[in-house]
């Protein structure tokens, strides 16, 4: 066997291991989702706690998978959509676990987080190519790692922020009516719990700003144009603007309640559009996309 054949055979083997590990991670996220759903249905804390422990297992396994991918590609593991989806699932789950560690028996936000993590993994596994590709010339920039890593960190915290917001809006009426505490939430801790949503969006906003700024600086260096109104760029600006409105609306007394919460959820939807739905609206309306970098 020649040297090259040995390398190809080794790479094929590592990829096979990596793909199977990725399926296992998707399965773990799926199990977590089921456990959180059982918690939702039964109102018992046991399944919720188990879901969180399982999620730790998933995140640790996923971290190993990401390290393996980094070793395979000898570069940061978020070049292709396959890799970005994996990174998104991992960063979202770990952001959730970091925030959740301060709560006592509150597990409901885990439903959206694990559903998205599992969905991202399955979307990558079933529709994208797992091939490890060499970095194309435009991606060979020092901006690449920073731009992607921080933009995805902002996505992760926005997901957790939105999941808290949804739980708050759903639970608030029964807690405010003075009904018995549900899912670890009561009149004493409900507002503190909700405050996390704002703090997370506040945390993510500078990261998203950096993501947009670094993207523009990078585009300026690569193509000589810092802004080209490409759909991806435009959607990121939409997301930024919606979150800007959300953060400002928290300072306007009349907008502080439901309107502000709506902006937070809208911001999350826009973030999803930026990430994977860039051309979805155009396709829905039957409008052709003539853009080079739009998915």
């Amino acid at each position, binding site marked *: 066997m020649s*040297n*090259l054949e040995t*390398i*190809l055979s080794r*790479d*094929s083997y590592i*990829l*096979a291991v990596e*793909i*199977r590990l990725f*399926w296992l991670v998707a399965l773990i996220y799926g199990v977590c989702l089921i456990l959180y759903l059982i918690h939702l249905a039964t109102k018992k804390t046991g399944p919720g706690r188990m879901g969180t422990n399982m999620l730790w297992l998933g995140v640790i396994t996923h971290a190993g998978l990401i390290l393996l991918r980094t070793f395979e590609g000898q570069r940061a593991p978020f070049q292709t959509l396959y890799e970005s989806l994996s990174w998104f699932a991992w960063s979202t789950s770990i952001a959730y676990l970091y925030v959740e560690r301060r709560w006592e028996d509150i597990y409901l936000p885990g439903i959206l987080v694990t559903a998205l993590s599992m969905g991202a993994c399955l979307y990558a*596994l*079933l529709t994208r*190519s*797992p*091939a490890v*590709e*060499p970095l*194309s*010339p*435009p991606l*060979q*920039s020092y901006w690449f790692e920073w731009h992607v890593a921080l933009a995805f960190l902002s996505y992760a915290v926005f997901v957790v922020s939105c999941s808290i917001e949804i739980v708050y809006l759903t639970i608030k009426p029964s807690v405010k009516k003075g009904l018995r505490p549900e899912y670890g939430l009561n009149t004493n801790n409900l507002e503190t719990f909700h405050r996390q949503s704002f703090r997370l969006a*506040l*945390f993510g*906003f*500078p990261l998203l*700003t*950096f993501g947009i*700024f670094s993207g*523009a*600086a*990078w585009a300026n*260096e*690569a*193509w*000589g*144009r*810092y*802004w080209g*109104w490409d*759909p991806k760029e*435009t*959607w990121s600006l*939409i997301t930024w*603007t*919606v979150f*800007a*409105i959300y953060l*400002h*609306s928290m300072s*306007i007394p009349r907008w502080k309640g439901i309107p502000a919460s709506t902006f937070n959820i809208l911001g999350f939807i826009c973030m999803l559009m930026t990430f994977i739905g*860039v051309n979805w*609206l*155009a396709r829905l309306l*039957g*409008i*052709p996309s*003539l*853009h080079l970098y739009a998915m």
Partner: protein
Amino acid sequence: MIILTKIKSINWQGIRENKLYKRFASLKTSCIFLGILIGFYIIGAIFPQDAVLDDYIKSGGGFTSFVIFFDLLNVFNTPGFLIAASLLSINLTICAFEIFLILRSQSKTVSEGLQFTPQFTFPLDINTQLEDAGEIVKEIFKKEMGFTEKTFTCQEINIMEKGWSYRWLTWGYHLAILFCLFGFFMTYIFAFEDEITLYPGEAATIKPAAINRWNKSWGNKPQELDFKLILDEFITEYNQFPKLDYPADKLSRLAIAMGWKDPKYLLKEESYAPKDWKSRLKIIKGNQVVLEKTIEVNDPLSYQGITFYQAAYKQILKVQIDDNPISFETETDHELIIPGIDGMLKFGAIRTGTLFKKDGGTEKIKTFTEAALIRKDKSGKTETEKLGKLEHDGSLYIDDKRISIREFKEASVLSYRYDPGVPILWWSGVTLLIAMALRVFGAWYRIIYRLEEKDGMPHLLLKIKTRGIMADEERLIKRLKHSLEKWAEPIDLDEPV
């Protein structure tokens, strides 16, 4: 001087009390303008911007009359968008000005604590009079905890702050956004860009066909630049990129997950992935070389405010049929009609330069291209037949005709741009990020306190305000307790009242 006097004579107070001015100084107005801009952004994300209308229609684009009437393929240059953006800028300017006035008036004196409601009460067992206790507490806050005293009109209440003022930081990054908008404006008015194709060894003069909006509005014509550009060498590099044999259908992918099948990397003829394109450039002014640089994607060359970028490359082939001395010139990926051949020839990208192999070695690529024959049947359906690899000194046969490459040329395509908005954007963007990061991730504390005598013992009544993710009220209380304990007789300070 006259202008200054005129400015001073304007009734600013009257303007500031104007209803419209007040509306523009409101946060709600900012949100509304941002909402309007979102509407334009969504339209811009749906309709392909800068697309030619004919191409849009040919690609099956609908809503044509709307697209034409509202100029939806160029929505970010429409008066509607420009007005909305200008109104937001005015709103931001007024808000920044108003906040500045408030902050300036508060820079030394704080208007906090008119209704002082303490959150914490600490008994101070420091065996002193109330006045002395006040000095000790001040000492603790200032020297041990790093607080700075603020002047306050009410003598009994003390206000101290620690950390970068979040209000100034917030004001700072809003001002930076305003400068960013000014940078965008500069780009909009003064930027221009064009492309130039350079062949190795040729000196090219640069005369942009494009013109910025400012010159266009004054009817000025583009000027030829006073320097020349020479391409010394154009270098292409490739990575050996094995193709992955991996199924597209979901069931087969599941089979791989179960271990019933394996993915496999295969090395095929077309396993070439671009690694880099480099242009070795010289700038010549008069007869002198004033600058030399090898540029590549992400590493441009700047001279006299113009930046040259490695955009693409162009490859031209001279194709010879049999031994005919007349050759046919074509560009790669373009169709070529040759008399006597049924169909059109098409040549893929010429692979030349250096190949970086998977095993770590490098090799000089024996120049080649992939040839294909495109035939159209009577119904107009096209059929592409792959003819295979055509090397520089090799040949291919089609319909008994021998096809060979007599010559090939590679040119570097550079885009160049003049944009005075970039430095403004760069500095304001960096300021924006720093100020925003300090505001959000930093820690700012304000303590408002008063000393009161209760049961013959001085008590510290305290209120804490924090801003920033790193600000930790609990940690502050712990530190305070620890400092007070050092001064105090042993006393249980665990639980603030």
